[in-house]
């Protein structure tokens, strides 16, 4: 089909989006080449911000590797748990609808608000976790120990976003064709073999889609960190977004923050494209 009217359908949405985004993006690039202060506004300083970023700011790169570690770990956990849960409530289960709704609920809750609750939950002396653990003589510092704080962030992220993975994978499982399973049943395949040779390969394209979507969202981890630990103790849970936030909107080094944002955006686009290509190759090799 081809009509002149096709543009009437496409353009309102496209132009609204471009219209809202184009100036901010151009502005970020312009700002990243500038010093900025409230007295005389922008002054062009060339690549100085970028030189500082690449030669003199280990904190940015540390926060970036921390982000990579946190997002990859949480997404892998979410995928494994989400797939297991989706497979379990797929069929042959009592209270099916109840469990499906229950497992969806965390993603419907506002991350920052639930994180405030998690903060009280993991409170060192007044929270229930340490109340139970104290019976065994333990009282871990969930939020103030550099290693444990990362672990706590991971727990909260997994709680919050496994439902999204679960939703996408369950939708995938429910849309699978019946014939391969009948064939496997006729051949007398064991449940394990059925999963490895039928279910999992059929789910590969959906798995890739779900993992990429979650990686994109996980790479923005910021709300949770802000409320749970404020990047601390020290900088041990600080992610890229949070560091840029501190530089830009706390210390008002707008130009430098803009150069970090732009670098960060480019790294995100490149690495997500590479990850998508690699995953597609790995999971679809047969």
């Amino acid at each position, binding site marked *: *089909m*081809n009509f002149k*009217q096709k*543009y009437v*359908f*496409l353009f*309102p*949405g496209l132009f*609204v*989006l471009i219209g*809202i*985004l184009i100036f*901010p*993006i151009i*502005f*970020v690039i312009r*700002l990243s080449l500038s010093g900025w202060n409230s007295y005389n506004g922008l002054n062009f300083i060339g690549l100085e911000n970028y030189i500082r970023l690449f030669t003199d700011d280990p904190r940015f790169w540390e926060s970036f590797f921390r982000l990579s570690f946190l997002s990859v770990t949480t997404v892998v956990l979410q995928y494994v748990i989400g797939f*297991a*849960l989706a497979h*379990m409530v797929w069929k042959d*289960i009592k209270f099916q609808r109840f469990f*499906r*709704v*229950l*497992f*969806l*609920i965390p993603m*419907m*809750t*506002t*991350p*920052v*608000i*639930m994180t*405030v*609750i998690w903060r*009280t939950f993991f409170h060192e002396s*007044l*929270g*229930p976790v340490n*109340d139970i653990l104290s019976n065994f003589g333990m009282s871990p510092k969930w939020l103030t120990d550099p290693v444990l704080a990362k672990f706590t962030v991971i727990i909260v992220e997994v*709680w919050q976003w496994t439902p999204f993975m679960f*939703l996408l994978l*369950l*939708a*995938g499982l*429910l*849309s699978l064709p019946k014939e391969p399973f009948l064939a496997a049943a006729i051949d007398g395949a064991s449940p394990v073999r059925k999963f490895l040779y039928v279910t999992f390969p059929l789910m590969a394209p*959906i798995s890739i889609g779900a993992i990429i979507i979650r990686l994109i969202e996980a790479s*923005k981890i*910021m709300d949770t960190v802000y409320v749970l630990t404020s990047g601390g103790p020290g900088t041990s849970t600080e992610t890229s977004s949070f560091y*840029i*936030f501190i530089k830009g*909107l706390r210390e008002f080094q*707008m130009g430098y923050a*803009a150069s970090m*944002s732009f670098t*960060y*955006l480019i790294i*995100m686009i490149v690495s997500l494209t590479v990850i998508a290509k690699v995953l597609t190759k790995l999971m679809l090799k047969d």
Partner: protein
Amino acid sequence: MGKLYKILKYFFITFWAVFVVAPFLWALTTSFKDFNSVNGGATYIPWVDFEPKLEGWRVLIKSPANGGVDIIEPYFNSLFVTCTASLISIILGTLSAYALSRFTFKAGFVKNNDITFFFISQRIMPPIVLSIPFFLFLGAINLLDSLIGLIVVYIVLLMPIAVWIMVDFFNKVPREIDETALIDGCNPYQAFFKVVLPNSIPGLIVAGMFCIIFGWIDFFFAFILTFTEVQLLPVKIVALNSSITPWWSLSASALISVAPLIIVAFVVERYLSKGNLSGAIK
């Protein structure tokens, strides 16, 4: 084998269900505590472990002048911003998605898939990258700290989701439907509004639910782009988390903020079981 698997399955599901419910139950008991029962260490069962009080709930509807928190106004602000931005995103997103699913576009090397990717790729944009220019721009046109400014920003967050879900949905709606309508003498607009749209209601509902979820749960933009005039619910609640945290009203307000979205969970599950979500991620 079968039996062991079954035991493991129910064990794991129960374990996860407890993990999902735990923070909600904790918030529920905490919301009925007062200063003394919170600071006496963790307690769980009302009347047995501690004396329940309604202070945490009462404070939420009092005005700040009477020492209350007043989450009613932020609540309606949140509802208004989320619903308006979702509605605009769905309308614009659905039109664009229909065009991308049915017609062919070509401008140089840019084809349909590239345009679709452009829409969806806006989700990759880290909020922090946009926050600084939005902060300066909205300030320049006096929309900082206003509902309209937030709605504009939320459209960027939500339209990619609407386009993503609706393109896949329209791809599954048979083309014969439009073609028959066109042969019967409809123009393309009539074909879309009278024939295709009524057949797309499940897709619209799913896209709407997702827009509402992702609009309602956003904190970051509301946090950076509003201060005192306009406050959204998440910002208001997180602001309670200050030096001396009133755990009781914090818990009560958290539960209130979660409540409306539980309905969304039921709707999503229903459409999931009917298979209307399956196309969404291929």
